[in-house]
């Protein structure tokens, strides 16, 4: 049974050249992210102003050993893009994982509870969906970036995130992931809710109920696995949404900051030199973000018929 299902999935999924293009592009981007340390052991040039080499700034594409040129601080765009791939993909994948997990649990619990609890839980989702997600993200970001927050966290967490008196460590990364997930889980909750409602009245669930299966076991063993397919597609799309959202936040100056180069951060710093005629610093990260979004959407397009029974 199981084998024939995966077989069937594979046959449907493989059909279409767009899926193949999507997988190829995504693999390329992933390889970029993995191999970044081989190209240069350090993410970027040291941040001290004394180390900025003005001779190397704004070198155009193909000039003096810089394949894609340099930005206004003289940083090589290829290196930035390689290291940026790590950060951008990390933000995308972590956010999608967190958001879909939370949304699935929320939607399943809500559908499972039914009645007034269900109504309240899903109205909350509807209400949040009515507010533009970027506005919610801005609001949460202003909470999370407040200096009180890092004092409130226990030392164990701070150590794990490598926060010291001189460095924020991984705290900004975690903050961005949490903040973007906090608005991205809504659609996943709705999908899980609709799926579970459809599954709930089926006979095997009634049988499990009759056998006295507990709520948690019911959710993890019966409801979630059977509602998983559309959620997996949603998770993929959320990766691209999160990368777009991170780039927007970086552009507004609320992103990860210069110590963690992401594609969004590259775009933000490229805007500074755009007026001076340096368009190539903006070209590469934009193309990379668009390619990531494109590849995920192409794969998703192939995935939707494959998971639709």
């Amino acid at each position: 049974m199981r084998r024939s299902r995966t077989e069937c999935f594979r046959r449907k999924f493989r059909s279409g050249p767009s899926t193949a293009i999507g997988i190829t592009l995504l693999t390329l981007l992933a390889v970029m992210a993995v191999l970044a340390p081989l190209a240069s052991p350090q993410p970027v040039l040291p941040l001290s102003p004394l180390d900025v080499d003005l001779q190397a700034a704004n070198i155009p594409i193909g000039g003096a050993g810089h394949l894609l040129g340099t930005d206004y601080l003289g940083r090589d765009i290829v290196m930035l893009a390689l290291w940026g791939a790590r950060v951008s993909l990390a933000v995308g994948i972590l956010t999608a994982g967190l958001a879909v997990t939370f949304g699935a649990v929320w939607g399943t619990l809500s559908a499972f509870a039914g009645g007034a609890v269900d109504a309240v839980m899903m109205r909350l989702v509807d209400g949040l969906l009515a507010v533009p997600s970027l506005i919610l993200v801005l609001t949460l970001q202003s909470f999370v970036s407040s200096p009180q927050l890092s004092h409130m966290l226990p030392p164990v967490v701070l150590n794990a995130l490598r926060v010291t008196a001189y460095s924020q460590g991984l705290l900004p990364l975690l903050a961005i992931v949490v903040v973007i997930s906090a608005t991205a889980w809504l659609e996943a909750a709705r999908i899980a809710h609709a799926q579970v409602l459809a599954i709930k009245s089926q006979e095997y669930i009634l049988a499990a109920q009759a056998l006295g299966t507990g709520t948690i076991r019911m959710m993890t063993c019966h409801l979630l696995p059977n509602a998983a397919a559309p959620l997996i597609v949603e998770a993929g799309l959320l990766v691209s949404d999160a990368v777009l959202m991170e780039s927007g936040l970086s552009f507004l100056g609320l992103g990860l900051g210069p110590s963690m180069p992401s594609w969004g951060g590259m775009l933000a710093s490229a805007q500074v030199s755009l007026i001076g005629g340096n368009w190539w610093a903006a070209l590469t990260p934009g193309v990379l973000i668009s390619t990531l979004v494109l590849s995920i959407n192409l794969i998703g397009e192939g995935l939707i018929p494959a998971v639709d029974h």
Partner: protein
Amino acid sequence: MLADGNLGLDFTMLAIVLKRSLSAVPLLFFVSILAFLLMKAIPGDPVDVLLGSSEKDLSSQQVQLLRQQMGLDQPLPKQYLTWVSGWWGAGELGRSYRDGRPVLEVINERLGNTFLLVFVSLLFSFGVGISVGLALAFAASTRWRALSHLLLPVVLFFYCAPSFWLAFLAISAVQAWLPGWPILGMHDPGRSTTLFSLMQHVVLPALLLSSRKSAKVALFVRAMVLEQAGRDYVLVARSKGLSQPAVLFRHVLRNSLIPVIALLGLALPALFGGAVLIETVFGISGLGRLAVEATFGRNYPVMMGLIVIYGSVVIVSNLIADILYCLVDPRVKEEMESGGLSQSIVRVGAA
């Protein structure tokens, strides 16, 4: 007989409008509660934020007085009622930390620019999106198949590219090729604003704001038309001797454009969110810029006011889209009477 039938129709229509409007009320209530609770969940006392370092110069008695004036000593439900009733009563919705002015007044100043921008880009999204989508589908089903293959990647590109990045490129291009074209802001400094100059200012940001949405609408319309074109009724119409264009324009077009209305309601949150970035690129002083300024200044009352305003606009426009949808498509009305509409709209919108 006919009049009777019409009357019956109007009553069900009215009932649906009423029912939908009523269901929007708790949603508005939820959004306002949410905004209020967020404001209360902020680490730190509003008085501290308001006074900053000057708090040390005040005696604890003066601080206490200020807390009383701001109503912070009241129980939470009472605080909520005072805050939310400021909307229609005193016209306040709290006061800005920055200059102490009523939040609603601060928002009102910026409202016009954003609404103009979002309205024009809504027109672009659906005008450009529907035309491109139809062109793609028609090209695919006629001789110009190659053209459709050529155009599809372009549309996909616009769907995938971040709008503010496209804005960078567009600004560079306009600077190079149209040196006199106004780019920044909504008004020419030192000159009175005419309708023409306003349109000149709004056209570029609105186009870029709508880029992603137009592409999405185009892809959606294309898929819809191609799906409809394979239906049996098309074959019947063709076999009865109707020409291909006649079938496409008279029958397929109508049936495939109806679900686009569902995208209309979903478009607004995305456009308002995107406007934050586009307003920043083009230096337009609108709600989006206000939101960014409020974020940097930790001006929480303004943030919460914005959430309530955005939420109400989106909820009301979703309501209008729903009603429009069931005016156009009788099948939806039946579904709505049985209570399953919002689900079906979401499904169509997500497709």
